[in-house]
């Protein structure tokens, strides 16, 4: 059992939890993920490590409420326990030798992009952050990004905050303004990563994306998280979750992500009703 030591609502659909998990905290690196089960009959879901404190022995996760499991998780409070919490899983993000990087985050993907920006910044790399949200109410981690970037662009779909437009608009502007990036790191919805990659391909800038497909065990046993990368089948849990964005088959990944859409919606409604009646 893993104690929730801090819970913070970041916006109406996104929650932060700091969880007491010393073994995971000791090893976690940006880019890695954990698998958790909120309760004894729960589903195993992967969530990327948003932050960690080795001394306190805590790991921070940030999640969007999308299905029954994240709904249940969101109903747990400070001082309560998550039944299972295993990690760190996956290969840490590659950060060595990078001098100038654009970190592009979209929505809750910013939670994954942030620790990478922070690590790169601490390593002395010049970090330009481009973060995008649907609207002002959904903005998360603004201060955290700002503190770890030499340049920061906030984009919203409706213009209610920052600049109106997509992250690709801002990134294109930065590249066109003469910024020579060693690498672009893009983390967010699949469709965002797809279009960031399309853009950077034109400029021939190496682009790393973090994939978050459906998983069960997360340790290299089930094969549910498979993706096509450069024409080959790869497993996000042990080969990733970071991949060369120019090689990822995003359309396939988007299709695979919808496999249980109906089930997820039904289960979430059931779970919501359960909490209402309680």
């Amino acid at each position, binding site marked *: 059992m893993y104690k929730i030591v801090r819970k913070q609502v970041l916006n109406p659909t996104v929650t932060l939890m700091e969880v007491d998990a010393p*073994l*995971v905290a000791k*090893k976690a690196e940006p880019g890695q993920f954990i698998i958790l*089960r909120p309760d004894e*009959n*729960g*589903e*195993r879901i992967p969530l990327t490590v948003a932050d960690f404190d080795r001394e306190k022995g805590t790991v921070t996760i940030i999640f969007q409420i999308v299905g*029954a*499991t994240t709904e*249940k998780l969101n109903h747990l409070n400070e001082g309560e326990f998550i*039944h*299972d*919490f*295993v*990690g*760190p*899983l996956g290969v840490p993000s590659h950060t060595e030798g990078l001098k100038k990087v654009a970190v592009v985050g979209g929505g809750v993907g910013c939670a994954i992009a942030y620790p990478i920006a922070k690590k790169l910044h601490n390593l002395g790399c010049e970090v330009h952050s481009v973060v995008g949200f649907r609207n002002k109410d959904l903005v998360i981690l603004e201060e955290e990004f700002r503190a770890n970037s030499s340049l920061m662009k906030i984009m919203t779909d409706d213009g209610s905050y920052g600049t109106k437009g997509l992250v690709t608009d801002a990134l294109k502007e930065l590249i066109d303004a003469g910024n020579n990036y060693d690498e672009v790191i893009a983390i967010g919805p699949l469709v965002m990563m797809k279009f960031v990659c399309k853009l950077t391909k034109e400029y021939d800038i190496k682009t790393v994306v973090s994939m978050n497909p459906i998983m*069960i*065990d997360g*340790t*290299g*046993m*089930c*094969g*549910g998280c*498979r*993706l*096509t990368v450069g024409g080959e*089948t790869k*497993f996000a849990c*042990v080969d990733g979750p970071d991949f060369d964005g120019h090689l990822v088959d995003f359309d*396939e990944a988007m*299709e*695979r992500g*919808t*496999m*249980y859409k109906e*089930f*997820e919606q039904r*289960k979430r409604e059931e779970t919501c009703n359960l909490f209402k009646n309680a």
Partner: protein
Amino acid sequence: MPNMSLKKNEMPVQQANVRNKNFSEVALGYTEEQALDEAERCLNCKNMPCRSGCPVSIDIPAFIAKVREKDYEGAYEIIAESSSLPAVCGRVCPQETQCESKCVRGIKGEPVGIGRLERFVADWHNAHSTEPPKAPAKNGHKCAVIGAGPSGLTCAGDLAKMGYDVTVFEALHLAGGVLVYGIPEFRLPKSIVQREVDNLKALGVKVETNVVIGRTISIDELFEQGYEAIFIGSGAGLPRFMNIPGENLKGVYSANEFLTRVNLMKAYKENSDTPIKKNTNVAVVGGGNVAMDAARCAKRLGAENVYIVYRRGEEEMPARNEEIEHAKEEGIIFKTLNNPVEILGNEHKFVTGMKCVEMELGEPDQSGRRRPIEKPDSEFVLDVDCVVMSIGTSPNPLIRNTTAGLETNRHGCFVADENGATSLKGVFAGGDAVTGAATVILAMGAGKTAAKAMDEYIKSKQM
């Protein structure tokens, strides 16, 4: 006077058209009368050929003699001397190729139903004994076991009995390995696995779930933490796919994923939060025990037609005869000498069919089985909405990639000698992580051998 019936006492089973709609155990176990009658068929041979066929060398004639005396607890004690998981082995061991294949009664007629008797004895013990095993005195030495599957649990049990302070590290949230995520409830009830794990805990074995060795803790760190010898029983690993078009369509599963959703995550239960696709027509590709398990699960989940698609003939299938027979009785359709070449999907990328070709058998290949050759112009489409690939696994890279000096072969399996010793001092390995996908009992045998070698290794260090 022994019972000279040429036939074994039949195993009572749930009726096929009833059981293919539920997840309760198929085989119901011998009654006491049946067990006594079957035990009378044993000739108590002096040279014990059956024992030589058992990977863990159970004293079979001795335990059967105890059954004849109605001393079932005595029979259990004899089995338990050699096997840490009697109730499991009595159910899932391929006895027909092991102990029973050597039985003298099998020369003329059927061999003694050793597996069925083993199961009877283990179930009797579980139903009647209330005392958990007592933890032996500790010898002050620590051992680590990686993976709580058949090899790891066996190794841990044997080491604990010798007095070692044993910790088992398990990546999943539940101990049991393939016994809980792979083998379905209807073949091996999970309560039986849990009971075996509880027995190990009573012996003093610590089980740490949610720890991934190679990620959460490395092998080197285990040594730093004072573990003197380490056993790796990390299992078979990543599923293989055929690399044919359409394998990433929605509705294509690896057998590992399909079975894990059903067994470990209980997706067959209405209240499970883990989804599984509801299917009408399912093709399971492969001919092993895992394929049979997947097919029988698919049927129980409500599929109308479930096919086993296998590129060789039924003779060549690696699955146990009993599993093949059970699957057929339950209405699984066998499409042998058929090989998939493409999986077809609709505009939403859900599976709609599987294109196959017919095969014929040619000359024997390296495995000694006749090689399947494609028949020209034999292409056809099987109407399915789900495909389960059950064509084997390749080893998990986690420990290999994070442990310097640990030798693996070209397939990525750990290299271990006949005692389980690897290229790293103090590190032993066994089970599927060494052999590639094999059976529960072979893994148990490897765990047992390694436990002995680990004991000798630790003792030799003290001299």
